[in-house]
């Protein structure tokens, strides 16, 4: 296995990118990129965070204009300076960060820019018919009249795909479409992609999950540091080789864990219930214990109450009823109403890595070092009673940067200018730095490349071995299986199953989760 280029797959090509260059200021996101995608195939693109995948696809979609290079579609060189051009040439894209207007209905979102007449009502009526046909053909059901913001992410994803299909995309680009999907939803999506392929649609898909690459693609291209480093026929490669191509070194597979005394309870939850503003019961009498030195994985299809549970335990939201006992603080159990707020909890050793890192975990316009103290900004070590000392804040950020290899090594950089993977590393570093007794973790590796995943897993296990009690909420079954000493499965706001980590297998868990799906449907 070498880094040398395989030949590009044979034509005829739906898409050819030739010597594409794209720079953002000093960052050379795409460097002399060539890519050829045969017609009616599914083509995977992989690479580390920041490798330039999204940029390349945005160039193909006309969202960014390349500094130099050509875009050739169906053998014809086309001008591609604007999404209008892409749409006109049958290119559709589902962006990594959804391009949906949350206040508009699904139908309106799909329609936007592709209305058939000046009258919205007429356009809607026409579109509704057309969409029904498309939905049926591909099994992509969405509630057309609900505001998109109120739909689950999986459904939003479908809206995005419908948007592209509605415009009769011949070339469909999907940028990390499975990042927020459950395995079941992802499989459904792949079925749709295969269907599309048989209809002659060419699909380009970006993902960090090699399993998915192996599963669904015909060819795969690997990017690293803004360059295209390899092309493979999927049939001729395997996950290990691809991982190595991406990271440039072999990636460790197994995760050694120490054997620990796990008898001491750190956090105890009893009969916790939560009813939301609309009167829907999101949590129904949840009870479980979290022990020192253990990682408990909370598996389940998203939208079954995991998010709410995390928010309540972290103090961000109040439960409706039930008791929570933080054993380590030596105080009696709290009720839902007296459970402290996140700031107080962090001070006594309950840390929280949020599911939504950009939305919650940091502040785009803050510097990295300012984001690095979020939630700990009352820590005595950072200054005097009322003031924060810049030097101390900076030093604490540098410590995190060092411990977690956060890049770039510049505490003054704007948080928004860090890559997603590095944002995630910074947040994890921040929450783990003060050796919390209880660590609540939501989707730790969402959108993160395998190199970073490896690091994050190692650090979580290190914290566990140091005696922390860790609750990991994840929709990635592999993740839950890899990390957990014990696995809880959530289903419609209840805990429906508990398995020992080494006894659990994907099938059993999948069934517990699937049953909840069936009940929902």
């Amino acid at each position, binding site marked *: 296995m070498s880094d040398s280029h395989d030949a590009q797959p044979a034509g005829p090509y739906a898409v050819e990118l030739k010597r594409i260059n794209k720079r953002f200021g000093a960052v050379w996101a795409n460097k002399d990129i060539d890519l050829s995608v045969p017609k009616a195939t599914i083509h995977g693109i992989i690479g580390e965070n920041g490798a330039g995948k999204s940029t390349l696809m945005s160039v193909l979609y006309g969202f960014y204009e390349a500094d130099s290079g050509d875009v050739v579609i169906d053998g014809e060189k086309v001008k591609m300076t604007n999404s209008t051009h892409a749409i006109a040439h049958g290119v559709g894209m589902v962006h990594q960060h959804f391009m949906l207007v949350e206040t508009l209905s699904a139908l309106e979102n799909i329609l936007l820019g592709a209305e058939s007449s000046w009258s919205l009502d007429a356009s809607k009526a026409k579109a509704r018919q057309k969409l029904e046909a498309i939905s049926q053909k591909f099994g992509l059901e969405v509630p057309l009249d609900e505001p998109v913001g109120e739909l689950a992410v999986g459904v939003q994803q479908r809206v995005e795909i419908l948007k592209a299909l509605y415009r009769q995309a011949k070339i469909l680009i999907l940028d990390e479409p499975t990042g927020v999907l459950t395995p079941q939803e992802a499989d459904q999506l792949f079925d749709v992609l295969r269907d599309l392929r048989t209809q002659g649609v060419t699909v380009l898909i970006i993902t960090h999950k090699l399993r998915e690459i192996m599963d669904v693609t015909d060819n795969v291209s690997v990017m690293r540091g803004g360059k295209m480093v390899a092309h493979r026929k999927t049939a001729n490669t395997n996950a290990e080789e691809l991982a190595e191509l991406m990271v440039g070194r072999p990636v460790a597979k197994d995760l050694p864990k120490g054997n620990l005394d796990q008898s001491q309870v750190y956090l105890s939850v009893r009969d916790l219930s939560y009813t939301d503003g609309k009167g829907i019961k999101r949590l129904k009498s949840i009870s479980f214990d979290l022990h020192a030195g253990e990682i408990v994985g909370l598996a389940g299809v998203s939208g079954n109450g995991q998010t709410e549970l995390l928010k309540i335990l972290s103090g961000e939201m109040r439960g409706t009823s039930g008791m929570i006992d933080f054993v380590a603080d030596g105080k009696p159990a709290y009720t839902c109403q007296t459970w402290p707020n996140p700031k107080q909890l962090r001070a006594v050793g309950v840390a929280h890595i949020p599911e939504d890192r950009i939305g919650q975990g940091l502040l785009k316009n803050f510097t990295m070092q300012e984001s690095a103290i979020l939630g700990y900004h*009352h820590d005595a070590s950072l200054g005097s009673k009322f003031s924060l000392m810049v030097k101390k804040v900076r030093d604490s950020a540098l410590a995190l940067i060092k411990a977690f290899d956060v890049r770039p090594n510049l505490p003054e950089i704007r948080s928004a200018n860090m890559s997603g993977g590095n944002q995630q590393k910074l947040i994890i570093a921040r929450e783990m730095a003060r050796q919390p007794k209880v660590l609540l973790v939501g989707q730790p590796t969402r959108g993160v490349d395998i190199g970073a995943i490896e690091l994050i897993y190692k650090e979580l296990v290190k914290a566990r071995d140091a005696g922390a009690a860790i609750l990991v909420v994840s929709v990635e079954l592999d993740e839950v299986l890899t990390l957990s000493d014990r696995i809880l499965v959530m289903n419609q706001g209840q805990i429906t199953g508990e398995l020992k980590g080494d006894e659990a297998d994907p099938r059993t868990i999948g069934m517990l989760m699937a049953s909840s799906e069936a009940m929902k449907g």
Partner: protein
Amino acid sequence: MSDKKNSQALPIWLTGFAIPVVQLVLAFGLASLLVLSIGQSPLEVLSVLFRGAFNFDTGLPFTLFNATSLIFTGLAVLVAFHAGLFNIGGEGQAYFAGLGVALVCLWLGPYLPAPLVFLVAIVAALIFGGFYGFIPGLLQAKRGAHVVVTTIMLNYIMFAFMDFVMRFWLGKGESTDSENFAESSILPRLSEMLPFLGFDDTPLNFAFFFALVTAAFVWWLIWRSRLGYEIRVVGQNPQAAGYAGISVSRTIIISMMISGALAGLMAVNMVYGAQGRLSLSFTSGIGFMGIAVALMGRNHPVGVVLAALLFGALAQGGSEMQFDLPDISPEFNVVIQGLIIFFVAALDGLIRKPIETLYQKKGSA
């Protein structure tokens, strides 16, 4: 905001000084055209404006005096802005604070020693102004009533209230002013504190230094204090605030109180410092101008001080124009202000970007 990263590489003299100067020149250039169009000499207008604003006799002290009030109201807008709130209520907050200051000076002034009056008057300004900022803060935090709407309404309510106060209570005889305060309960003027400067006959008073100190304090508050950190988190992203355990509603209320209190300090300059009595409508739009000052100053205290000086100078130079150039209507000055706000603040990028790229090209070449 996104060009911050780029501008880090550029020297401060360029971004903070040279570019604004070019922008100012452009604004004045356009104003000159207008002057020409009404048949006057732009050079003369400019020199009168400039001399009027900066001559050492009366110009400079008046400029500084005007700036003092603007610094306070500008800082008020700034603090609220960092909490994500747009406080249009500086006018009402300062007006009410004026009442607080006046009551202290009228009631306690004759009995307390001057330093004590000073303290109590400032505290009164803070409390009255703060209280009138607290109301919209509370309504926003607890009831979701938008601050922009409530502060506009509260301004009018305060105008009516103070009208009532002056009419039925504090107004002296047939006048719409209160009694003059006792001499000992008026803030010392600069001409008394530093007689060698020779700023006689000008209302410039101790409040000017107080404004500078306040600006420094606000800088510390926003960028160096723990509370300021929380204020900025809430202003940037309320979700993140919830995650970090920062109470959004509490922070909103506190920020509005601070904002109102800062606006209230304007009354220290006007009521306690310059006028030595409470008069009807003494705020006369200065609370409102604070918005322009804060935004021109890029919501940074140093910027606020500079912007306040600029507007203070314009107001003073403009009033000098009335004496020396009676043929130009006094409102001309307002046009110049508008042009400056437009060119220096709103159209910032138009001039800034080309200059910056030019500079960078030269640097790399």
